[in-house]
C-alpha cells in the first residue's frame, strides 16, 4: 500500500511531500516521545503522533519512515513545515484522534508488528 491510497482512504490532508506519495508503507508506529520512535520506529513505517516540533522531521528522515501523520487536526509548526519541505518528508494531517486513526490504518491492512 502506498501513501496516496492511505491519504485517499482516510481523507488525510497533505502538508508536505506531495511528490513522494507513491512511497510504499509497510507498517505503522504510534508515539509522541521522539526518543521512543528513534528506538522502535522501522523503515517504511507510517508514524502517527501529536508532536509538531521540527525534530519530528529529522526523526522521520533518519529512520527512513514513510511519513508522519499528525492527529486531532494538529498543524505542524512553521519550522517543521520548512524542514519537511527541504527534506521532502511527507507530512499529513488527520482530524481524527490517534486511537481512531490507528484503528482505521489497521483495518486497511497496516500492522504495527513485523514478522
Amino acid at each position, binding site marked *: 500500500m502506498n501513501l496516496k491510497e492511505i491519504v485517499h482512504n482516510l481523507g488525510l490532508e497533505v502538508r508536505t511531500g506531495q511528490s513522494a506519495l507513491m512511497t510504499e508503507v509497510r507498517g505503522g508506529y504510534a508515539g509522541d*516521545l*521522539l*526518543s521512543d520512535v528513534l528506538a522502535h520506529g522501522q523503515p517504511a513505517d507510517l508514524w502517527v503522533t501529536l*508532536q509538531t*516540533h521540527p*525534530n519530528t522531521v*529529522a526523526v522521520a528522515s533518519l529512520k527512513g519512515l514513510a511519513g508522519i501523520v499528525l492527529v486531532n487536526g494538529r498543524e505542524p509548526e512553521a*519550522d517543521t513545515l520548512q524542514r519537511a519541505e527541504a527534506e521532502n518528508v511527507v507530512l499529513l494531517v488527520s482530524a481524527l484522534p490517534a486511537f481512531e486513526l490507528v484503528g482505521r490504518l489497521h483495518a486497511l491492512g497496516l500492522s504495527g508488528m513485523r514478522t
Partner: protein
Amino acid sequence: MEVRADLHIHTCLSPCADRDMSPPTVVRRGRERGLHVIAVCDHNSAENVEAAIRAAEDAGLAVIGGMEITSREEVHVLGLFKDDRALQSAQEVVYENLRGENEPQVFGEQLVMNERGEVVRHNGRLLIGATGLSVEEVVQTIHRLGGLAIAAHVDRPRFSLLSQLGFVPAGLDLDAVEVCAEAPPAVPKDLAVVRSSDAHRPEEIGARYTRFLVERPTASEIGMALRRIEGRRVLT
C-alpha cells in the same frame, strides 16, 4: 572564588514536593550541605522565591530565583533569573500560557509560604501541567528577560529534552544541560553540563551540585561560567 551551587531545588509550592520543603528549611539544609548558591525552581511558578531569598538573608547562602517551565512538548526547562522583575515577567508569561486548576487530592498541595515557613495561601493553578509554549519559545522567553535556560535532567526518561524530542534541536540556544547521573549525556560537546539535585525532599538538597569558578555567587556570574567568559568556568 569557587562556589558550590545546586541550581534545581523545589519547595512545597510544587505539588510533587514534600510539605517539609518550606523556604527556610530549603535554605537551612542548603547551608548545612555546604552549598554557596541554590536556585529555587518550582514547576511553572516562582511564588516561593521571595520567601527563600528573605530566609537566606545573613545566612551566607545566595538564592537565585527560577522556575522549572514545562513546554508544550512536555520538556522541562529551568529558567534562572538575575532579579525579581525578570522573574515576575517570566511568571506572567508562563501563567498566561498555563491552563487548568490543581486537584490537591490527585497532584498534591501547592503551598505559598513566608520566610518563617507559614502558609500564606494555596496556589490554585495546575502547576504540574504543560504550558502552550514550544521549547524554543520557552528558551526565547527566558533569554528575552536576561535569564539562563538550562534543559533539566536530560538523562531521565521522562519530561526531558532528550526523551521528548530525541536530541537537542538545532539552533536551540541553551546555556547548559542538567544531568542526574555521572555519565556524560548525548549532547553537543560545546554545551555546558551542570549537575543538580532536583530535590523534592529536604534530604535530597545538595545530593548533586556543580562547582563554579566565579567572582560572585550570582546568576549573571554563573551564566558567564556556563559560556566560559572572562575566566569564569564550570569546574569538573
